[in-house]
């Protein structure tokens, strides 16, 4: 059975789409047949982050409404042959995602032999976000170390518990993982930013990914390349660690400590 993983946060702008793109690419590059679905109806973005925006012909809503076959709508990723993308529609009708339609698409992806289906959730707690988490087996809850993002992440955890099909059917609960983005170890060390351990403690979740703040993220999105492919950069390494941990490898957290500061800076402030 294909494993359905929702990437969610509540708050916007914390890195859901960036994380979805890199996570899906990472799984695919490890040989896992992966599909990633953009649930942000009306605000299609994932295609742009993955650099396939000009090859999108049909979208998620077209498939649900029967205007196109799933096989016609899936876009093969140019970076990884194991990855397919299902773009969000740009229709204004946000209610177009119906539960049975979403289920049909997920079942069909399963029948096509996909091992992982990543659902990139929209921000907020409206129907799109609820549809994205509805069928989830596991959840990546993305937050940055800001109070508002952490609070919204906690709210999302409550919604997963209340609204997921697994909870409703009394099955084993959705397995939740924490992804902390835009982390600045230097500021955390100075007490100016919530430490990753604090965020994990507040949300009572194990950390799957600790992603340092990086200029590389913008640089990669400019070019339509998922940042996990920015070879050698800390942020790419952090996302690679995240994927490896997800697949059961034991990788200690990196980028938790600031790089050493020269002595003169420590004496006189930097």
């Amino acid at each position, binding site marked *: 059975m294909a494993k359905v993983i929702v990437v969610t946060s509540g708050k916007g702008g914390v890195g859901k789409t960036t994380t979805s793109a890199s996570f899906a690419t990472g799984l695919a590059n490890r040989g896992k047949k992966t599909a990633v679905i953009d649930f942000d109806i009306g605000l299609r973005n994932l295609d742009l982050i993955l650099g396939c925006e000009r090859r999108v012909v049909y979208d998620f809503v077209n498939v649900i409404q029967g205007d196109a076959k799933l096989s016609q709508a899936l876009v093969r990723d140019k970076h990884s042959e194991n990855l397919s993308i299902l773009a969000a529609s740009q229709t204004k009708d946000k209610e177009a995602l119906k539960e049975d339609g979403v289920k049909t698409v997920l079942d069909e992806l399963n029948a096509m032999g996909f091992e992982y289906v990543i659902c990139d959730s929209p921000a907020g707690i409206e129907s799109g976000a609820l549809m994205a988490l509805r069928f989830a087996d596991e959840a990546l809850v993305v937050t940055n170390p800001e*109070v508002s993002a*952490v*609070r919204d992440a*906690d*709210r999302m955890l*409550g919604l997963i518990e*209340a609204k997921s099909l697994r909870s409703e059917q009394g099955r084993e609960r959705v397995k939740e993982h924490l992804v902390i983005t835009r982390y600045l170890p230097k500021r*955390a060390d*100075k*007490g*100016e*930013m*919530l*430490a990753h351990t*604090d965020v994990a403690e*507040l949300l009572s979740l194990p950390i799957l990914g600790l992603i340092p703040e990086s200029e590389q993220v913008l640089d990669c999105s400019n070019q339509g390349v998922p940042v996990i492919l920015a070879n050698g950069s800390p942020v790419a390494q952090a996302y690679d660690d995240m994927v490896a941990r997800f697949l059961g490898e034991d990788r200690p957290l990196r980028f938790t400590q600031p790089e050493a500061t020269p002595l003169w800076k*420590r*004496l*006189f*402030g*930097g």
Partner: protein
Amino acid sequence: MSWFEVLFKKRPSAVIAKERLSIILAHERRNRSGKDFIGALKEELIAVICKYTSVDKDALKVSLDRRDSIDVLTVDVVLPEGGLRRS
């Protein structure tokens, strides 16, 4: 941290953030358990009362409060002059 900052040390803002978050998250988690049905309950109560009486919808108040350790469900109905009448 420079020597200047060490001498005039104030409480790190991350500590304040953590404290504030632990309080608000605990509060919100408490409210979360089971309160979701209140909106639906309100609507249905109002619909039923309006169905059998001529009471104005706005004259109805439904609330769930917590007093000490007891949950209190309050339904306030302001009866119209002349008493209840099947509309």
